[in-house]
C-alpha cells in the first residue's frame, strides 16, 4: 500500500513516518503498542507530539480507502490543533479526491464544523445540513448533521 506513489508523496510531505515491526522490532512494538494500545497489525496511527493520537486505522483497507483515511487523519489533526482554516480545505480534499469512501461523509461533516469554528457563522452548519440532503444522506454523519436543518 505504501509503495503507491501518491500515498508515498502524501505521507512524506505531511507526516514524519515511523514503522514499528511486530517481529523485527519486537521490543519497540511492545513498548509503543502498550503506549498507544495497538494490539493488532496493521494499525496506523496519526499522532501529534508528544503522544496525542488524532486518528487510527486498524486492519487492511484497499488503496483509495486507505488513502482517504490518511487524508482524513491529516485534516482531523489540524482540526484538533485548532487550525480550523487549514482543516476545512483538508476535509474538502477528502471529499474531492475520495468521494466514494467512508471517509467522505465524515469529512463533509467536519468541514462544516471547521468553517463554523473558524468563522462563528452558524450558517456553515445549515449549509452542511443541505449538503447532506444532496449527498451521503444515508450516512451516520447525515444523522449527526440532521439537527442543523
Amino acid at each position, binding site marked *: 500500500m*505504501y*509503495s*503507491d*506513489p501518491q*500515498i*508515498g*508523496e502524501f*505521507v*512524506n510531505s*505531511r*507526516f*514524519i*513516518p*515511523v*514503522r*514499528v*515491526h*511486530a*517481529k*523485527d*522490532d519486537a521490543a*519497540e*512494538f511492545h513498548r*509503543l*503498542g502498550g503506549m*498507544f494500545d*495497538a494490539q*493488532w*497489525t*496493521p*494499525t*496506523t*496511527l*496519526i*499522532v*501529534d*507530539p*508528544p*503522544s496525542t493520537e*488524532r486518528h487510527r486505522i486498524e486492519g487492511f483497507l484497499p488503496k483509495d480507502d486507505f488513502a482517504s483515511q*490518511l487524508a482524513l*487523519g*491529516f485534516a482531523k*489533526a489540524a482540526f484538533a490543533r485548532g487550525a480550523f482554516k487549514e482543516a476545512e480545505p483538508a476535509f474538502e480534499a477528502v471529499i474531492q479526491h475520495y468521494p466514494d469512501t467512508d471517509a467522505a461523509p465524515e469529512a463533509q461533516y467536519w468541514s462544516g464544523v471547521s468553517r463554523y469554528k473558524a468563522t462563528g457563522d452558524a450558517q456553515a452548519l445549515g449549509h452542511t445540513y443541505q449538503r447532506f440532503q444532496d449527498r451521503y444522506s444515508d450516512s451516520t454523519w447525515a444523522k449527526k448533521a440532521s439537527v442543523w436543518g
Partner: protein
Amino acid sequence: MAETIHWSHDFDSAMKRAGAEGKAILVDFSAAPM
C-alpha cells in the same frame, strides 16, 4: 516492490523532529515482510 516512504525506526527521534517541523507522526504497526 519499490518503497517510497522514508521510514524512521526511531520513534523518539521522529517525535522530536515532528515537534520541530510542526508535523504529526504517522506510526505504522506492521507485521508485513520488510
